[in-house]
């Protein structure tokens, strides 16, 4: 099978900064925006950019992610000559290895990539919310005859020292890379999106690992090596909405921004749809005791309480007298009567008993998947 470009999504991380939300599944599988899981944005970007062969590298609690991705049918990836392949650790004659870093994970999956025979390899993270046409980036890569192209976004100067910063020349060539510099020389932050000429990356990785030269991470090892080796490394500028959702605070913020859809993500644009696995669920039922404002609600919800500026995911039930404000309720969660929830993220399949109060006014409150808070609601 010959492909011009395939994508590999690094979805291995536990995402421990998401606390209890990732205790039993990987970060890319965390629900988002009522209808999605985080990885849906990256997968949909691929499909919308015309990339139909995707490897998803994962090693932490992959069951939810595997179930979600399945055969890729939800993204049209079960098409002829297309597919999504979950890549987990395995053993071979040389022994068995866990993935030790982003570049090492690619090295361990050379066989998969070779079997797809791509000219270009697109490396992605599975934990950002954004819409981006990777095909445009590929055009940049080809025009510049680059060996490596890194997508960059300009961040506010005062935040630049939290990112990997790319210093570029007047041709947009990257001449220096600094990981979280104390005194950044530019505000061009790496988005963790790379296009490599596969044969070059392959030989760099094989050479390094054979000789035990450290080449574990893209940011720490590979990009500096490329720059030092005189390979053509270019930046591709991106200016749309882009949000890392790696912390509770940023995940909550991204969800809140998502509600009003005024952040430039333009999620209702059907020419660049965000695909996801659709559950089988009846329409939402807003009863005569409910009020719902400035909120998003999806199939299977039963709402008898008051919802203000919040997101309710599939099959959430909220009984009478309860208030949900500035919060995200993940799928399958049941909320009893006279409950108050403010500035919170409530995980999947949580049960919250009558009269409970969850107040995240100071710091966003989190309830982990499957937890039971207070008395179970009456089964009336």
């Amino acid at each position, binding site marked *: 099978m010959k492909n011009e470009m395939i994508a590999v999504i690094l979805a291995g991380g536990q995402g421990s900064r998401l606390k209890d939300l990732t205790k039993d599944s990987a970060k890319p599988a965390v629900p988002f925006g009522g209808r999605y899981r985080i990885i849906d944005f990256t997968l949909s970007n691929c499909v919308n950019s015309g990339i139909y062969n995707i490897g998803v590298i994962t090693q932490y609690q992959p069951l939810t992610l595997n179930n979600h991705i399945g055969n890729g049918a939800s993204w049209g990836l079960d098409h002829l000559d297309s597919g999504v392949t979950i890549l987990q650790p395995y053993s071979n004659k040389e022994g068995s290895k866990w993935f030790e870093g982003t570049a090492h994970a690619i090295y361990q999956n050379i066989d998969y990539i070779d079997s797809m025979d791509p000219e270009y390899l697109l490396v992605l993270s599975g934990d950002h919310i954004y819409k981006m046409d990777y095909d445009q980036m590929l055009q940049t890569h080809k025009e510049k005859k680059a060996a490596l192209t890194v997508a960059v976004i300009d961040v506010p100067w005062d935040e630049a020292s939290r990112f990997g910063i790319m210093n570029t020349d007047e041709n947009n060539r990257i001449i220096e890379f600094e990981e979280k510099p104390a005194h950044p020389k530019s505000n061009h932050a790496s988005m963790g999106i790379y296009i490599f000429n596969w044969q070059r990356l392959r030989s760099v990785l094989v050479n390094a690992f054979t000789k035990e030269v450290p080449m574990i991470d893209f940011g720490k090892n590979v990009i500096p090596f490329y720059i030092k080796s005189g390979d053509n490394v270019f930046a591709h500028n991106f200016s749309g909405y882009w949000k890392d959702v790696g912390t509770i605070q940023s995940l909550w913020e991204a969800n809140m921004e998502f509600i009003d859809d005024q952040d430039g993500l333009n999620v209702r644009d059907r020419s660049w749809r965000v695909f996801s696995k659709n559950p089988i669920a*009846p329409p939402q039922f807003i009863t005569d005791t409910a009020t719902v404002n*400035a909120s*998003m609600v999806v199939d299977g919800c039963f709402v008898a309480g008051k919802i203000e500026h919040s997101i309710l995911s599939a099959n959430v039930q909220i009984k009478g007298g309860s208030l949900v404000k500035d919060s995200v309720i993940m799928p399958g969660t049941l909320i009893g009567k006279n409950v108050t929830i403010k500035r919170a993220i409530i995980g999947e399949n949580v049960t919250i008993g009558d009269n409970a109060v969850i107040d995240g006014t100071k710091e966003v409150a989190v309830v982990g998947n499957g937890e039971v808070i207070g008395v179970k609601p009456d089964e009336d």
Partner: protein
Amino acid sequence: MKTNKICAIIGNEHEYADLLPLTENRPLSTLYFDCKYRIIDFALSSVVNANVRSVFMLVNEGRVKSIFDHLGGGREWGLDSIGSYQYFSFYQDMVRKKAQGELPVGDIIDFLKAAKAPYTVYLTNKFVCNLDLRAVLKIHQEQNNQMTAVFKRAAANRIAPDDHILTLKKDGTVKHVKEFRKMSSKTEVYNLSLGVFIVNTEWLIEQLQNSQTLSLEEFLFNSLPQIKSSTYEYTGYVSNIYDLPSYYQANLDMLNSENYNSLLFSSHKVITRTKNEVATYFSIASDVQNSQIATGCVIKGKVANSLISRRTLVDNGAVVDHAIIMGSTKIGAKSQIRYALVDKDVTIDPGVKIIGQPDNLLVVKKNEHITANIHGGK
């Protein structure tokens, strides 16, 4: 349980002029129901939930496009797998065959032989219910019947003239079958046939080989009192679709949470075509009560006692009350819609009023652009 115990035939014999204009370009089977379903989803879900993988669909030429559009490759129902098949056949082919002196039901017999299932279920196209066919099969097997017919005890005002009523003997077997319009004695409730039959396939093939019938349903009803058969009473929610008021009421019934739970939250899920829709957005000024809404909508106005299908916009200040809004409709700012059924892809201009009455429902046809007020009234 291995899968090829039952094969299914879904008929499309019923069409009602009283449902026009909603059925102008679609069969009754693909009428919208409760925001995201089509009538055929209920029969088809019963079938696939019973692990049936061979489905034969009898359709009418000229109306088949709407069914294909809805079913696509059959993916959502799992009917696109190896060992699963949807067969389509046309009523008109039966007429042609008869005219040529061939067996009209030849295609059905071919299907039954290929499916190799000992039991066949026939389902009609006009009832909305969530039937567990495995439970019916169990009764059928225990009673060692040739045929088992499913009925529901129903009030006269929920029965169409051409529906069939079963009169039972004391032992639960069928004494006779009559069309409702031909019933002489009137009672409060009737044993309304739900047009669902489980039959022994071998017997069915044998009978059909000697039959010139053009209506499988008629054939089954005629056979029912003549062979070893009994009945299965369905006790869940049913609605019977045969005219605008019955169709409207069936939808509004879903706003009763008992009906909604009985039909849609049973252990057997009702499957429909999935679309990738964004969550429905309720603006800060929206006011929604006692309504059901599918995903992908944007609600900025007031909605009460209504059902709203996918990707509908209710703009600022608009009022939707006691209405059924089908997919992708644009309801302009400050417009009003009451006691109306608005078909797909309609655009209603700002400020326009479409005001029906409980006993005089208004219908807006598919693709229409409404620029002036419409009032219904006695």
